[in-house]
């Protein structure tokens, strides 16, 4: 379960570049719910994800993940509760480490790391099994460096990494945006499978309105640091991509008007 209440984030406070990235966002995601988040550039999607992951510490408000208040915890401290797949395949894994080393690293997410060998025979077998499930033929390349893989292959491995250790929430940060359409489709199918099999509480930020409506149980739209749309159930089923686009246009028009006022 995720619960954020009245989150405000201000970047560069007191400088000429001061920016209110989130302006009082409250959002509760129930156990096992899959929420998609859309919004134009600068709407605050990435900031919201950062607040959940720990990269961004909220200026005001409270963040709860599972049963714990993590508002002040950094990324590493709350990593045991948060699994994450990044937009850039290069960010989510270590290019200079092998596939199995990346998996070993992820398998201990949020745990104490001791001096025992990171790759024993049992772990190796387990990792190979999990990678084999991808049907990408990577199980024979477990010792290859991660940077020898294509972007799509890396994202697929990243998804496996996200599920090796337990977590209260899975954060997906436009994780198909950098991929070609075919690979994006594959990754989304895989995501769907993993999320439903494991009943993961998931928040997915996406650029694609198609994805936002086709996947998950609930869709949230952000604009100018605030939630402007929050639909689930039947009202969401009726929603079409065209409706979302229309809403976007309207929002953008508003901003233009605002800008015009400012300039005038």
């Amino acid at each position, binding site marked *: 379960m995720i619960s954020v209440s009245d989150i405000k984030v201000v970047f560069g406070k007191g400088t000429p570049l001061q920016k209110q990235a989130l302006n009082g966002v409250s959002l509760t995601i129930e156990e096992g719910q899959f929420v998609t988040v859309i919004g134009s550039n600068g709407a605050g999607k990435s900031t919201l994800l950062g607040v959940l*992951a*720990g990269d961004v510490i909220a200026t005001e408000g409270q963040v709860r993940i599972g049963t714990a208040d993590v508002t002040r915890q*950094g*990324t*590493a*401290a709350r*990593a*045991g509760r*948060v699994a*994450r797949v*990044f937009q850039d395949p*290069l*960010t*989510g*894994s*270590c*290019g*200079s*480490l092998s596939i199995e*080393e990346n998996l*070993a*690293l*992820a398998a*201990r*997410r*949020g*745990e104490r*790391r*001791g*001096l*025992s*060998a*990171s*790759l024993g025979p049992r772990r190796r077998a387990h990792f190979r099994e999990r990678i084999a499930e991808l049907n990408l033929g990577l199980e024979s390349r477990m010792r290859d460096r991660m*940077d020898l893989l294509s972007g799509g292959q890396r994202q697929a491995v990243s998804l496996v990494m996200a599920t090796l250790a337990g977590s209260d929430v899975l954060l997906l940060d436009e994780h198909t945006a950098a991929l070609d359409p075919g690979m994006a489709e594959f990754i989304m199918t895989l995501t769907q499978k993993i999320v439903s099999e494991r009943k993961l509480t998931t928040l997915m930020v996406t650029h694609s309105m198609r994805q936002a409506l086709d996947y998950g149980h609930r869709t949230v739209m952000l604009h100018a640091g605030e939630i402007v749309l929050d639909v689930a159930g039947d009202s969401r089923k009726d929603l079409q991509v065209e409706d979302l686009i229309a809403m976007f246009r309207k929002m953008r028009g508003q901003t233009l008007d605002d800008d015009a006022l400012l300039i005038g």
Partner: protein
Amino acid sequence: MSLIAFWGAVELGLVYAFVAIGVYLTFRVLDFPDLTVDGSFPLGAAVTAVLIISGVNPWLAATVAMIAGAIAGLVTALLNVRFRILNLLASILTMIALFSVNLRVMGKPNVALINADTMLSPFFGLGLRDFYVRPLFVGLLVLFAVVLVWRFLESDAGLSMRATGANARMARAQGVDTNRQIYLGIAISNALVALGGALFAQTNGFADVTSGVGTIVVGLAAVIIGETLFGARGILIALIGCVLGSILYRIAIQLALSSDILGLKASDLNFVTALLVTVALILPRLRRGGAAS
């Protein structure tokens, strides 16, 4: 090249292998250009020499030297992590400060150990000539260090250190406290370098405050020679590469000293070393550039 000169080069190469392994940990594993070593090498020599002179057991003296080196490393890490000073600058600050510290530790710029009992003393006169005993002894210590560092880097704890250097953002997302890894890595690195300094003092009979000049360059050169010869094929190979790179570097100097065949003089080696290290610094950037395009 005579037998004594050859084994002398091997011995010095093995002493500096500790520096090479230390530099590998910072430059390659942590991606943290750490120049502290120019200060922690003579620090190790100074601490061990002063303690031995005052009657402390040489093994204990070397251990204390390692602790002193680790503390020097922690200072650099503190400046970088806690006070956000650029890594290179932070290490230069510590290095400069260590010059004064080393003078304080020794009380003078040069402490002699020629007549003192060292870690090696019990092994002289057992039938093997001195110029074999020294490299053999230091070689065993190097072997021990290589195995320990190798096992560490392949453990869960070591993996998180490697991830910190390779992709800090990802490491944090996996729950790795990257700041702690920087503290730990730089402390281990400088402890090894200080041990190198301690062994230098014990095998050559003196600790001199000037003996740190260019340590980083020698260490980097050794790492590069190793990488060039063996390529990037895993931790153990890389560590062995550091050791052999360090030995080969010393043999190259010895060749330059013992013959005019290459047309090289000892005075040319600074240039050759600088060239090697420049290549070392440029090469990964070129590779990264190639991968990104």
